[in-house]
């Protein structure tokens, strides 16, 4: 017998509405055949049968909302008895718990393998496997646990998981095009010869008045969806302040001079990140998320760093950054940024960020308005460091200045708090010994 549970279709999905069952009790159902329509906070979708057999029972009616992973029905053989108390696996994070977004998408039901021999897998794992053309049976998983998204990610590493025609592969090989960077225009995103040629030579003939059509890669689509949803669903507002980083730059020079001793070359970004993490100690609302019922303040800092790559924006996460020394943070930052640029990030590397930094300092940019990565309550942006005349100790002199930009969720905190956050950051950056001693 296999349990049907309310699928968890995304990391931040808490509950789902069963719009309607597509099958009646007693109907035969096949593994992966659509059996119900569900609605999340973002989309409606069909959900598939987790096994083959007949639909034995429906535990909820059409048009009912239940927490994700709650058992809502059973598939099995005719005459099988259904349990009287279904195992409930509601996904409810406890405020202040040390792991609010731990992967709870694994139903801990004892009936992990159905009699039909189907591979138990979370919906996210199934979707990932399907999108990447992997058979569930091919993917190694932990004994006694259903296949999880993490397992699929692991199986995908090192595999050229692209769908392409044989001719497209020949062209890619001969022209040195990496198929993983090519958006496919064929059925189900299959890469065709023309897509490879487009990737190899994107230039338009001079004088053409046809618009250049750039196919949407999956990552571009995801960025577009996340950015739009973020601005659409949160009460975002931005502030900025110019700070004096002359001391910080001088400190960095001294640290770089002793990099052999430290074992890492400290960057300005490392110092800024370290200062921000220390700031969060006294401003927990900037390391939080808004939910319908409450505000979740996290007792740890998973620091997310916006990284521009040739394939688009990513935000790898340094988990438990608040437990790190400056040297630890510097090494972790270098590791994760390198892997982001090499497309070597795993799903884990991109999950559960609680606070984000974005640094435009290599560009001629001072003040800007970052967009919050939902559901985080605060993102801090750094502009360029620039020498300019400033009043320092009552005199006009040349100082190194930088603009600090912040965007925050006004549902979580108000202007007074953001003023206080900026004051702390300004204090720390202008007097770096204050955060270094923490």
């Amino acid at each position, binding site marked *: 017998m296999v349990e049907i549970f309310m699928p968890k279709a995304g990391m931040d999905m808490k509950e789902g509405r069963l719009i309607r069952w597509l099958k009646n009790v007693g109907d035969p159902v096949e593994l992966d055949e659509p059996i119900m329509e569900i609605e999340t906070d973002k989309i409606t979708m069909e959900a598939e049968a987790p096994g083959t057999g007949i639909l034995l029972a429906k535990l909820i009616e059409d048009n009912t909302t239940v927490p994700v992973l709650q058992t809502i029905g059973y598939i099995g053989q005719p005459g099988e008895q259904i349990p009287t108390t279904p195992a409930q696996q509601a996904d409810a994070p406890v405020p202040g718990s040390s792991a609010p977004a731990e992967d709870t998408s694994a139903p801990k039901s004892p009936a992990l393998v159905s009699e039909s021999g189907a591979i138990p897998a979370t919906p996210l794992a199934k979707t990932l496997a399907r999108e990447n053309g992997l058979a569930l049976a091919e993917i190694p998983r932990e004994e006694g646990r259903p296949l999880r998204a993490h397992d699929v990610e692991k199986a995908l590493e090192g595999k050229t998981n692209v769908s392409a025609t044989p001719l497209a592969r020949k*062209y890619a090989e*001969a022209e040195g095009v990496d198929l993983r960077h090519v958006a496919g225009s064929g059925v189900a995103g299959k890469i065709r010869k023309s897509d490879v040629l487009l990737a190899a030579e994107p230039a338009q003939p001079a004088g053409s008045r046809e618009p250049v059509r750039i196919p949407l890669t999956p990552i571009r689509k995801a960025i577009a969806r996340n950015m739009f949803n973020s601005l659409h669903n949160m009460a975002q507002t931005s502030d900025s302040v110019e700070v004096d980083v002359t001391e910080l730059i001088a400190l960095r020079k001294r640290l770089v001079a002793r990099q052999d001793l430290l074992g890492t070359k400290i960057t300005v970004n490392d110092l800024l990140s370290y200062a921000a993490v220390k700031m969060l100690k006294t401003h927990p609302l900037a390391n939080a998320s808004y939910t319908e019922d409450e505000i979740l303040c996290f007792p740890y800092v998973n620091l997310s760093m916006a990284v521009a790559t040739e394939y688009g924006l990513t935000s790898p996460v340094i988990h438990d950054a608040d437990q790190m020394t400056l040297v630890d943070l510097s090494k972790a930052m270098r590791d994760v940024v390198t892997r982001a640029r090499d497309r070597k990030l795993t799903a884990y590397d991109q999950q559960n960020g609680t606070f984000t930094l974005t640094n435009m300092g290599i560009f001629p940019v001072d003040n800007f308005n970052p967009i919050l990565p939902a559901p985080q309550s605060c993102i801090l942006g750094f502009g360029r460091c620039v020498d300019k005349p400033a009043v320092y100790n009552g005199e006009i002199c040349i100082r190194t200045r930088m603009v600090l930009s912040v965007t925050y969720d006004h549902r979580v905190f108000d202007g007074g708090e953001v003023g206080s956050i900026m004051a702390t950051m300004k204090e720390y950056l202008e007097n770096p010994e204050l955060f270094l001693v923490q």
Partner: protein
Amino acid sequence: MSEKVYDVAVIGGGPAGYVAAIRAAQLGGQVVLFEQDTVGGTCLNRGCIPTKSYLKTAETIHQIKNAPSRGILNVSEPAVDMKQVVACKDAVVRQLTNGVGGLLRSNGVDVIKSHASLNGEHTIEYADGTCQAKSIILCGGSKAVKIPIPGIDNPNVLTSTEILELKELPARLTVIGGGVIGCEMACAFQAFGCQVSIVEAADRLVPMMDRELSTALAGALEAQGIQLHLSQKITSIQDEGGQAVLQCEDGLRLSADKILLSVGRATDLDCLGTLSETIRTDRGKVVVNDRMQTNIPHIYAAGDINGRLMLAHAASKMGEVAAENAMGHQSVCDLSAVPSCVYTLTQIASVGLTEEAAIEKYGRDAIRVGRFPLSANGRSLASGEPEGFVKVVILEKYSELCGVHICGAHAAEMIAEPASLMAAEITCEECASIIHAHPSLSEAFMEACGDALGRCIHLPKKRR
């Protein structure tokens, strides 16, 4: 008149128009189709389908004549009854056009039997009034071209439409134009018992196809007794006592009872109506992009009218693409792997680039040509049809199939395999490795691919 505003209005019920109408209806559109004649267009009513009926009769005559050589006794000399030939053809046409009518009805398309043309960017004028539509798909098709020579209006000069209505066989028939229609008609009427001549301006038959196919076809037609006059420029047609006499520049004179004029087809722009100056055309063809849009984005043009590729199956694809775009989808038309078939006796068929075109595009050193003669194919031999070959043109660097050219009794069916594999972007190496049934004609394509790669099993070793 009705106040209803349709989602899509289609002018012309040929292979582009009726397919566009059905596709738009499938996608949920309220659709109206205007056709002044019977749905099905030139293809069903007076082109592809009727000629195939005639050519099957011709093929049967050849088989009867050939029967004694296969050991069949008591075979008498066949003769045709043109009335029955025409009736047989008409029955096929009726069944198919009725079928198309039924498909349109079942999809809820309103079919209006009337001439129709544009009378505004969203307005169509027809016999009983006007009609409004959000998007319009123009599928006006094409008509036979006439050439400006003295005597072209001679009553014995027939178009392809008119020759299909002949119920008496002319003793001598001269075909002007050695293209697809001319060659097919020549084969049919020669088999029926006419003495047929073909006069062609170019130096070969079917000039658009690979030169080897032209040569093979010329040989096959001459073997049937058809007289070929290539590189001829016609100066006039004279009437001499009921006989039509064709005069050529170099002095050639051909006397015939009937002349078939088949020098090609030109777009029919009649449906542009009051927008004929607004909608952009180039050399008589409506200019469209890959989504089949004209310069007015909600007006589309599909099929012969845009002159991209004058083939029924290409027209249907264009109609489908136009309908999908008209219904708000994003669809483009790729015409790089469209098969082209000539149902002569023997047949020829092509997909992709000719050898000449491939050399011009990629250079002689970049391409490889593989050939396999049907005389080395068991099934062809057993069937007594050993004439013909399969030729593949590949771009060596990518093992890419650029073109496949087939001559043989069943070439039009055989071309489906390479056309499908090219559309799916399967490389020549894979084609040579796919297991083909033995004995079958399809093996010849696999062997030709093997030859292009220097690994054909059933050909003698070549000195390279």
